[in-house]
């Protein structure tokens, strides 16, 4: 049995504004697993993933990554993880190649390995031809693809992805899915958040569905279907969160971006 590479216990976050974004979540991710965090807008997915890497300070709770604690071994943990965030933040004053080189150096990789990784990754995300352009000249989809390549430069043991295919066209999305599957097969643990049902179904071995700061159900796709007597993931989602991702109905009671609740 594979050991847990991520262990989270009773994790909570209350923002200074008073918003209780995460209300006590507990879960484990096994080594080599493709784990999905599914949930509607505002569920607390980004807050959770950011707490896992200490980009958001947790209010309380325990986090262990690869047997290490953020409080004491942050640098060790950072050496082992890659993270493509929901908001793609690039150095606009650099070219893609310069950024990849700098990051390779900062991860203490030998120069030859940096170069071979750069070649491989640029090809993977189909950006070889524009690698020497400043990143501010990239389109939204190019930026996201490049960001993914950047997060993979040091071949991390654990990859965190916060909505990695948001804004990508169907071709690019399929391309990325294929690569993520391969990386996972080669042993990389992947922690992915998404609100695309199709993406979760295509990639994730195990899923947790999050709603309003809590995990409402968890398991492999077949387990979830059985547990909730559902035909597909869409139905599980509907039954557990009371909302659909299929239609864009405005919630009259508040945030127009939060999908309707039935």
């Amino acid at each position: 049995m594979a050991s847990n590479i991520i262990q989270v216990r009773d994790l909570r976050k209350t923002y200074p504004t008073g918003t209780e974004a995460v209300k006590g979540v507990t879960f484990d991710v096994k080594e080599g697993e493709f784990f999905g965090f599914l949930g509607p807008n505002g569920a607390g997915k980004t807050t959770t993933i950011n707490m896992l890497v200490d980009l958001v300070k947790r209010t309380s709770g325990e986090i262990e990554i690869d047997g290490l604690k953020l409080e004491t071994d942050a640098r060790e943990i950072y050496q082992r993880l890659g993270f493509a965030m929901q908001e793609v933040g690039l150095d606009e004053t650099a070219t893609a190649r310069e950024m990849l080189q700098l990051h390779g150096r900062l991860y203490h990789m030998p120069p030859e390995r940096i170069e071979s990784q750069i070649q491989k990754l640029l090809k993977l995300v189909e950006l070889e031809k524009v690698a020497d352009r400043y990143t501010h000249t990239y389109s939204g989809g190019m930026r996201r693809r490049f960001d993914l390549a950047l997060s993979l430069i040091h071949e991390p043991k654990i990859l965190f992805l916060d909505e990695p295919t948001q804004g990508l066209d169907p071709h690019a999305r399929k391309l990325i899915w294929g690569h993520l599957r391969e990386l996972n097969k080669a042993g990389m643990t992947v922690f992915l958040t998404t609100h695309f049902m199709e993406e979760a179904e295509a990639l994730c071995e195990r899923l947790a569905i999050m709603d309003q700061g809590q995990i409402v159900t968890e398991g492999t796709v077949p387990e979830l279907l059985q547990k909730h007597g559902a035909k597909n993931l869409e139905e599980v989602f509907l039954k557990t969160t009371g909302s659909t991702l299929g239609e864009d109905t405005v919630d009259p009671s508040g945030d127009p971006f939060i999908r309707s609740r039935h």
Partner: protein
Amino acid sequence: MSTFFHDWYYLSIRSIKQIWRPLLALIPSLFIPIFFFVVNAASLSAFADVPGFPEGVSYRDFIAPIALFTAVFFSAGNPGIEMVLDISSGYFKKLMIMPINRLAIIFGRLTEVAVQAVFQGLIVLVLLLAVGVRIRTGIPGTFAIFGLLIVFAMGWSCVSMTFALRTQNARLVQSLFVIVFPFLYITTSQAPMHLLPPTFRVLATYNPITYIIEGVRALVLNDWGDPAIWKGYAVAIGMFVVLVAVALSSFKKVMK
């Protein structure tokens, strides 16, 4: 520790590349010191005849250190601006989740300050030499002047980085030097200490910039025996240590 030097080196390369990006922005930071030097040297030259003014020193030579100081001082605002840009673009978060020494993030920016200070200081120095200003402590003294100004500029730039990290407000960080510039005049920049009115003298005594200016001035006008030189260094190094520590402690403010 080896990580610190490694990270410092590679982050320095990045920040040095960024100096030349706003090449046009370098013009005002050279224009202002030169403008004030030329105007003051011409309009206030009679000041050298006031009783109590150092014997045999022209007003032009007396204010030459201010031109050098200002040119270098203006190089110290960029790190904060670059840092705010990194924070608002989201790139800063990437740096925060890499196995980087955080002190190296600050020092990477300090390299940029030093390089720019040398570049701007040299231009002003050449101009001063061309109009006849002479540095009495010679070539070693010239190095000592740059050393003093660079340590000061690096320390001072930590103020802009602290504001960047704590407020994440680009406009505020950008206008920081406008707020601070007037304090340059509550020093001995315009007249020797004993010629200042009493209240002004007290303010100037507590203004650390006074000691930096007096240190540079001693190196331009006097000899190595002048205690203002080591006092200047002591103040600059003290400020450097304190302000680096304050900037370093501000990193956690970026995390919500």
